[in-house]
């Protein structure tokens, strides 16, 4: 019965997962005839951040018209294998922490109100993460080249940026909740601008837009993420307030006992 699942506020991991996965430092000039695999590898190679610390605000706009904002700080280490998110506001969830290990296979939650740490099941990778429009699968994505395979459909302009347009299907190690995705990767700097997800029925289910890329110590990090559900109109917007990369983070931060500190 014990199931594992990834935790909500692993949005930071998304920042990284997607920034790290898709985003990349610029590759300037040259016109190598890239294949889809080459482009994915390029994205993986160019977007490297061993550790990150990101302050962000996540606003969830539910289809029912509710809106809720959370402030959080998120840490990742070892290429997103370890992650820790701490809620800073509002007061109802302040101090709650979510620890993810083994690329999201193991998840713990810490509740300051009860001072308890609980293991969270992760049986439903395709489920929405606590009311947001991100699924656990979105956050569990590892290296792009390992998770996806596909074809280069050509080039297309997206918001005035010329992009590689890739149609990708998940590999065996990739996410299970999608049949395919269409990804737009900037031809100029290999940053990912948009991901269009198709559910297991092959219908468009949601769209992730990443923008406001900023250079953080040589790594281009998107400061704005917008995940829109094309099924129910819900939307989750994440705005990064401050990002640090490749900083020193202690291993003890990413332990069960570390959660109570």
């Amino acid at each position: 019965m014990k199931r594992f699942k990834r935790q909500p506020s692993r949005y930071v991991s998304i920042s990284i997962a997607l920034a790290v996965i898709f985003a990349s430092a610029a590759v300037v000039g040259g016109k190598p005839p890239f294949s889809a695999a080459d482009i994915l590898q390029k994205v993986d190679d160019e977007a490297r951040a061993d550790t990150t610390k990101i302050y962000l605000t996540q606003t969830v706009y539910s289809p029912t018209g509710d809106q809720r904002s959370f402030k959080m700080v998120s840490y990742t280490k070892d290429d997103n294998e370890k992650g820790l998110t701490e809620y800073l506001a509002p007061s109802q969830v302040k101090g709650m922490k979510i620890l993810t290990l083994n690329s999201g296979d193991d998840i713990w939650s810490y509740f300051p109100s009860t001072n308890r740490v609980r293991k969270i099941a992760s049986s439903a990778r395709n489920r929405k993460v606590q009311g947001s429009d991100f699924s656990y699968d979105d956050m569990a994505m590892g290296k792009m080249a390992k998770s996806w395979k596909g074809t280069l459909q050509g080039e297309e302009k997206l918001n005035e940026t010329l992009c590689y347009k890739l149609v990708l299907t998940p590999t065996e190690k990739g996410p299970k909740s999608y049949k395919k995705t269409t990804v737009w990767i900037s031809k100029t700097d290999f940053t990912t601008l948009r991901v269009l997800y198709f559910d297991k029925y092959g219908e468009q289910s949601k769209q992730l837009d990443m923008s406001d890329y900023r250079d953080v110590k040589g790594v281009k990090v998107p400061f704005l993420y917008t995940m829109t559900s094309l099924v129910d109109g819900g939307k989750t917007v994440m705005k990064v307030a401050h990002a640090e990369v490749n900083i020193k983070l202690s291993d003890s931060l990413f332990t069960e006992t570390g959660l109570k500190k």
Partner: protein
Amino acid sequence: MRERLYDRLVQLVSTKPWWVLLGAFVLLIASGVIVELRGLKMETRILDLLPKTDAAAVEYNDILKQYDSASQIIIGVKGGRREDKIAFIDRLEPRLSKVTYTSGETGKTAPYVKHAVLKLDTDYLTKHGLMLTTHSDLENLEPLFSNLEMADLLTAYNEFLEMEYIEDSAAVTEREKEDGAISNLKAIVKWLEGVTKATPKERASHAENAVDAMTIGDQYMFSQDESILIAMVVPTISIDKMEETMDGAKSLRRQVRLVQKDFPDLNIRMTGMPVLSLEEMEVTQQDMGFGTLWSLVLILVLFIVAFRMWSAPLLAIINLMTGIVWTLPLIALAFGRLNLMTTMFAIHLNAAYAEARARYDNATESIRAMYASCGNGVVTGALTTATAFVVLAFTGLDAFIELGVVLAGGIVLTLISSMTVLPAMYVVADRIRQKVTRNSNRKRASGVPIPLLGKGGEAVMRRPVAISVVVVFVLVTVFFAWKAKGASFESNMLEIEPADMPSVLLHREILREFEINPDFAMVSVPTVDDARKITDRIKKNRLVGQVDSISQYVPSAQQQKRRTPVIRAIAQNAEAWVPSRLTRGLPTGGAMAPFPNYQLQEKISDEEKERLLLEMERLNKNILEIGQFAYLSMKNRLARQCTELSGGKDRQFSKIINLKKQFETDAHLKTHVANWQRAYIPMLAERLTEMASVEPLSVDKLPTKIRDRFVSHKGENLVTIYAAVDLWDGNKMTLFNKATEKISNGVTGTVVLMDRLITLIGEKGILAIFLALGAVFVILLLDFRHLGYALVGMLPLLLGFAWMVGIFTLIGHKFDVANVMALPLILGIGIDDAVHILHGIQNRGIQNLPHVLKHTGRALVLTSMTTAIAFGSIADAAHRGLAGMGILLTLGVICCLVISIAFLPAVAALIFKKQEVEK
């Protein structure tokens, strides 16, 4: 040709006025007979506004025919205590058989309530409750009910909560899980409170309630905080019989009010399509009633002041009524405002007649002069307006077809009445006056002049003035056109309904408290398996609040097979706790079953007491954590429930902790717990064994009450999908409809039809505007046989349209599905003023523009004021859609008037004066 026609009319009405009036009277009687025989009823269904071939409309009709329960009324009970609300519903139940409606066809009364869902059908749930539980939930329930003693059961409950709602917290994002969590938490607290019950009787009664809550949940449909209790009533007739439906809804409302007299603390409201339609009709009738009354009074005053005649308003009203009654056989009677609008013919004719009567000393000459003066204008104006309306029929949208035909038909028939009956009445009135005053040749006053119009006409004859006027109007038009660009569409249908209609208020409350929209989509599918597939797929969508389907009552054969062993295991556990079964073995001398401790125990042990208290602490922590996850997941009902029980961050407000403190201070807690165990355990064990039936479930074995809700006469299955979002909001309605369309092409319902209607009105509305503009231009061209006149004639319409939309937007109004219908209307109405002015110019020459403005302009001011009064009278209607329409049309009429009597003469002076000079 027209001159010959006018000559004949003059001859007819002046020589045989009584015959004309008799003919009109005969036609009136014939119209009445036709209406009586054919029957004329007011229908306000969305279905009637859509093309008959529309797939969703066809499907909707089919579902209405197949399923009687395709519409429902929801009764909401607020205020008072929980017990009062339940008592109200229980008292209402027997009265439902007295709710009737009168059949429109037979005139007989018949029962209106087919069945009522006032509380859950506990019989079926009690017998098959476990078989209806999912396999994974059953697996969690098995350990939960293995030991029913308090400390053990609370320990198991805690483990269950941790596994179900904390470790699997993502699942709580789903509606069913949230409902389950709320129900379970309420049940646990109710069960714990049983310890505090002092007497055996109290304990027995509380145990019954607690066991119900633990096994089947609340029987009544309460909101999470129990502030509202709702009950559903399913009518015997489908909503397509609108008159009967509203009659039944009225009857139900009477019965509800009768019962409510005994419950003064309760606030009862009803909603659902039948009630909404009833209240909407009542409010609209009230609005229209007041509006019509006010406008009639104002128009009468206007006539008296303008023509200084008492007979004029009377004759105009008679003429108007004649037009209305003649139109009735042709149209539905919904368009009272058309009839007020068409008084303009009478005003024009009356103004011309009054003017002529001032010059000529007999009625015949006056009528001849009247036709010569404004006959062409009236006929062309009427035909242009009617044509602009009738082209709406070419949009193919029933809503526009009906509107266009009704308006055009009404205008033509009132025109005929105005050109024949009205002059005949003038002649008759004149003859009567002769007899009374014995002065046949008295000239009469022509009415109140508007000197400014004549002076204005003289001024624009001077080129610099005309140019200045044109420049100013162009600049104003540019400004309003720029403002018009900011016009927006109100997609929230609630914003056009009366704000305080009880059905709307309850609708909103249900949405807020239950997170379910009372409106729904429906789909009819051939098999139960189809229903199951659709249900399983759609209920995961966050836009969906609830899905009612037969699959909830009949699991698949495979599901039943999988659940059976777990149910047997639960039953086996439970049986060990049923005293009757234990004692049954004793007399036989067979092996005595292990006697459960609770049967003989006077007190629980210290260890059990400590464990119970510890588990209560753990329970509080679990609820706190579930609450935090619920908050993160925006599951507001569950979050509120958890805060209510755990106190949130403030421990002193925790129900659980306060109960624990009460236990700790209870010197006899161990005895009380033992007493409580003896009360509830046998009941719980009995209930569990009862619920553990593994008898195969099928549609045939369903109770009739349940089967009838879902299975049609043809054997098809109805799936009803309730939204979790406000479907009055057009954007959400569209999203919801898109989501349901994905699961089946056959999804229909009022929400689907409304969406289709809004889309079609948007598409066809633009087509209607262009068609009307085109038709108006063609008529003008044919009438004036002059391109210049036709083009100039279009100017007031185009400018007036821009002004109207600009001002409407500027004063903060939005377009909506009701007032958008006014846009093509204003094209028909607005052209009339220009036609009259241009006819005057064409007849008398541009040099007589001051005269045209002085006389025709005065009539235009009066006609426009009449029309503006008629439309303005509904501008403060409670029905906001109607009010918006009134404001928009009033603005349109005034704008077209101002442009026609100021801008148009200036343009005409500039263009036609130059042409005449050139000639």
